[in-house]
Structure formats: structure tokens, C-alpha cells
């Protein structure tokens, strides 16, 4: 059936009569609450309270599962059982799969079936579930777009706009979907800047979970240091890179009650996709590092890089192992750091270095894929531009933290 233009308009009128209610718009309490969450004077204190809630929830939820049950399960039952039944104690296969035969906890054993499994299931899974659960609730209530409006002015100083807060927050869960989320930004310059900055400066949820375990009293300092780096290097990149940073109009939806079914479905999808990416790399990471250790390559590399690691960054040469592992999984690398003997400032510096150091291989692959949108030029921009930024950051920002320790008299 084909309708004329007039008939179509008549049909539209009829449908509108049935479904549209006409009346006077009334400003309600819900609207007033929505307004004060986007005004800086009232919105920033509310954002601080929300972030406090976020951290408290993250710590309590992840701590309940990890410290309450999973540490016990892995250290008191799984590790002793494996050490007893796995054949060929002392052999290279034993070393790769079970790790150090004298280890009394899964963090320090460093085998595929001990440390890798413990990191992936015992530490990362609760942290990721806690992170995504809170994030989805913020998303579904309509608070996230308001946060975007709040930080718009600040992010404009580095050539981004408020919507960049979405990949930033997503990145705290996993850098891979966050790099994809940079597509929502307007220009190539903004997309490249955001992808590089988040790959370097924002630790993922898995890494955060391990950081809370390894340096519980210093996570706030590390986060502030990385955030400061994000803005300093964002400002520099904005000045150096050609391209535009246009204004945008952001649609802010009304506040609404999250629907439990939607929350669980989204949570399941995100945790599932995270684990598809994470688990193979954690297992592979432990195998590669153990093989490098067994063949003596790691020792050779540590000696080669000793002047740089000890001289410039002030950390022991043994950190080369975690730095290699960091290319595969950063959470794994932080877990490895805890087994190396060093002072607290050295440990904090090493954690910062692992965060700043090369993005994990999954993020790196995603960065290259994003660059492919711009053809060969795009790939080389993401590859060489990203690498250039990374080298500058690791030397300057990584070296600066040592200077801070020297000034404070603790290095």
C-alpha cells in the first residue's frame, strides 16, 4: 500500500492523538536533583561522594571474595595439593606449571596453575565484577552523562570534551573496550590522544585489584600521580598534535531506576568478554616469563638494563621480569613485583613503571586496529606516535617519581 504525502501526515496526526499527551511542563523535584548534579558548585561534591562510594564498594566487595575465601582456597588447599600431586618436582615442567616448590602462597609460586589461576580468578574476577556492577548502575541511573557534563570544562583544557570521561572510566575496567569507546569522540586528534593517554596512564580493574593487595596504603598516591600525568601529557599532546577539538552537545537523560535484569545481563556480557581476553594472556604470560627465566634470557636482559633501571628509575634489576610480563598482562606484572625484595618507595615506583610501561598486548592490538581506520597513515600514527609518547612518558614521568623520593629523603 502506497500513501500520499497528505495521507502520511494524516496517519501521523492520528497516531500522535493516541499516544502523545499534551499539557504544561512542570518542574519537579527529580528535575531539581538532576540540575544540581551538573552544576559545578553542587555537582563536584556529589561526584566526590559517588567516587567515595565507588572505591568503598570496590574494596569491600573484592576483599570479601579475595581475602575472605579465595586466598584460603588457593593457598591452603589448591597449592599444597598441586605441590604434592604434580609429577617431576624440580623439573622444568613442574616449574612452569606449579612454580617454586618452596612457595607457601600462590602469589609467590609463579606457576601457570598457581599464580596465573590465582591472579585471574582469585583477584581479578571479584575486582572486575565489583567495578562493572557499580559502573553499570551509574550508567543505568543516568549519572554518567552528568559526570561528563561536570568534567567538560577540565577536559577542554587538554583538547578533549566531557564525553571523554566515558572511555576514561571504562578504562578503569579494561583498556580494550575503552580504546573502542574512543570512537565516540569527534576528531582523529581527540581519538588518538584519548587512546594513547588511557593506554599509558589509566590502570585497568585487574591491575587495580592487584595494587590494592600489593600496596594497599599507596594506591591513592599512585592514582593521583597517574592522573596528574594524564593531564600534563594531555596538555602537551594537545599543543603538539595538529587537528581540531570541536564543541559538542551532550544529551543528558533523566534519572531513572536501574532494571535488575538489564544490570545482570550487561554485567555478564562485560565480565565474559573481559575473561575471554584476560585468561589466555595471563596463562601465556606466566609460560613466557618462566621460559625466559629457565633459559637464562631474563638474567641476561636484567644485566643489560641494570644501569637504566637502577640508575634512572632507582629500582632493582630484577624488575625486568615483571616489565616483560607487563606486555602480556599488567595485573600479572604487579603480582610478580610483590615477590621481589625492595623498599616501599621502590615498590611504588615499580608499580608506577608497570602502569606507564607499554600497554598490554590486547590493548596494543586494539590501538593498531583503531589506527587502521585511517589506512597506513593511521596505523603509523598510532604505532610510532603512540610509541614516541610512551617513551617520553616512561622516562620523564617514571624518572620524576624517583626525584620525588629523593626530595622527600626516602630514596
Amino acid at each position, binding site marked *: 500500500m502506497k500513501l500520499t504525502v497528505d495521507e502520511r501526515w494524516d496517519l501521523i496526526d492520528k497516531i500522535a*492523538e493516541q499516544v502523545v499527551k*499534551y499539557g504544561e511542563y512542570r518542574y519537579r523535584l527529580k528535575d531539581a536533583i538532576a540540575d544540581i548534579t551538573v552544576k559545578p558548585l553542587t555537582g563536584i561534591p556529589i561526584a566526590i*561522594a559517588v567516587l567515595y562510594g565507588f572505591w568503598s564498594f570496590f574494596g569491600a566487595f573484592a576483599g570479601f571474595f579475595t581475602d575472605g575465601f579465595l586466598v584460603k582456597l588457593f593457598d591452603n588447599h589448591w597449592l599444597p595439593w598441586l605441590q604434592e600431586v604434580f609429577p617431576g618436582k624440580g623439573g622444568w615442567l613442574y616449574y612452569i606449571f606449579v612454580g617454586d616448590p618452596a612457595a607457601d602462597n600462590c602469589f609467590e609460586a609463579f606457576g601457570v596453575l598457581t599464580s596465573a589461576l590465582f591472579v585471574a580468578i582469585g583477584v581479578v574476577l571479584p575486582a572486575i565484577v565489583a567495578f562493572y556492577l557499580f559502573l553499570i548502575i551509574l550508567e543505568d541511573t543516568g549519572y554518567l552523562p552528568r559526570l561528563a557534563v561536570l568534567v567538560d570544562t577540565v577536559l577542554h583544557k587538554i583538547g578533549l570534551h566531557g564525553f571523554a570521561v566515558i572511555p576514561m572510566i571504562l578504562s578503569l575496567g579494561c583498556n580494550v573496550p575503552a580504546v573502542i569507546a574512543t570512537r565516540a569522540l569527534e576528531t582523529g586528534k581527540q581519538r588518538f590522544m584519548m587512546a594513547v593517554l588511557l593506554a599509558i596512564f589509566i590502570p585497568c580493574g585487574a591491575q587495580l585489584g592487584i595494587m590494592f593487595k600489593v600496596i594497599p596504603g599507596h594506591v591513592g598516591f599512585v592514582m593521583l600521580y597517574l592522573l596528574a600525568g594524564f593531564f600534563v601529557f594531555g596538555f602537551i599532546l594537545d599543543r603538539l598534535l595538529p587537528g581540531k577539538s570541536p564543541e559538542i552537545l551532550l544529551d543528558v537523560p533523566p534519572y531513572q531506576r536501574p532494571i535488575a535484569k538489564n544490570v545482570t545481563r550487561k554485567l555478564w556480557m562485560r565480565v565474559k568478554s573481559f575473561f575471554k581476553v584476560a585468561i589466555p594472556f595471563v596463562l601465556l604470560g606466566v609460560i613466557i616469563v618462566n621460559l625466559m627465566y629457565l633459559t637464562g634470557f631474563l638474567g641476561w636482559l636484567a644485566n643489560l638494563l641494570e644501569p637504566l633501571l637502577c640508575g634512572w628509575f632507582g629500582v632493582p634489576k630484577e624488575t625486568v621480569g615483571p616489565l616483560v610480563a607487563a606486555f602480556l598482562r599488567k595485573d600479572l606484572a604487579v603480582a610478580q613485583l610483590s615477590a621481589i625484595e625492595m623498599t616501599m618507595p621502590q615498590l611504588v615506583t615499580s608499580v608506577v613503571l608497570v602502569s606507564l610501561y607499554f600497554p598490554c598486548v590486547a590493548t596494543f592490538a586494539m590501538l593498531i586496529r583503531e589506527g587502521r581506520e585511517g589506512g597506513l597513515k593511521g596505523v603509523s600514527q598510532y604505532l610510532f606516535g603512540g610509541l614516541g609518547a610512551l617513551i617520553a612518558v616512561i622516562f620523564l614521568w617514571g624518572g620524576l617519581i624517583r626525584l620525588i623520593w629523593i626530595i622527600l629523603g626516602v630514596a
Partner: protein
Amino acid sequence: MDHPGGGMKLNKEMKFEIGRVYFAILGAVVLGIGIAEMLLGVTGRSFEWGIMEMSGEFLLWRGLILFFAGTFYLSSIQNFSDIHQLAKTVMASVMIWIIAGMKIFSMILESIPGGEEGGWFNTLEGFLASYSAPYIPSIFLLPFSLLVLYYIKLVESEEKMDGMKEESQPTGSGGDT
């Protein structure tokens, strides 16, 4: 106004006047506690008074949030019945609920497992001991902040009444949405 039951029924203005005085007092208390927690957080000290304590992780942040909550309460008392002002009272209460709620949530989670050397689950004594005093100030402020729910209900019922009045009036199509 005399109530048929013999008691006094408060009119809307009176209810908001009571709310104004109540939240002014609560605001001053919340602000004071917020400042105290911030000072303790900055100096790295702790304070215990009876069953209340100001110490622990994130003390400075908790103080900062209570400071803002107190400021919100106090800034909302002028023209309290206006919904813009009431929105500030609501958000101040929400800020207290976040701190107290998260503390209660972590207390519940900490009470369940058996501890490092214990079994999988806590003993009954250990479970009950997890809920013993001292508590952070926000836990004490929580019940006092709940009064805001009454004012939300009051405003919402008024909004509902207005909506019903509007619907009963005949309106033609083609007007502004």
C-alpha cells in the same frame, strides 16, 4: 487547625518550617563533624568518644563529604519549601547514606568469612563482634537524615495532585508538549 480526632493537623507551611529548623540543626552538626574529621585526617590522628570514633581509611574523604553535606543542608534552609532548596537537602542526605551505607555494607561482608587462621565462615561470637562499637559518625547521622524521605513524599504527593488537577482540565491537541 483542629483535627476531627482532637489533635492538631499541621499545615504545609508549618511542616516546612519544622523541616527548616530541623535541617539547620542537623546541617550544623554534620558540618562540625565534617570539619573535625577533615582536621583529624590531615593531621593523621584519631578520636574516640564513647561508642563513636573518627579514624580509619579515607577519614579525610569522609570528612570532606560530610563538610559538603553540612553546607548543602545549611544552604537549603532559606526558602526551604522551594524544590531547588529541597533538592540540596535530598542530596546532602544521599551523601550521608553513601558513607554510612558503604560502612554497613563492609561490616556485613567482613562479618561473614572466618578470618586468616579460622575456618571458612565466622563463628557466632566473631560474627556478632563485627557489629560492635565504635562506629563512625555517619552511622549515627543516618537515622536523622532519613527525615528527608517524609519531605520527598510530601512534595511528590503535591506534584501528583497538581498532575491530576491538570488532567481533569480539558486540553486540546496541538498545544505545546
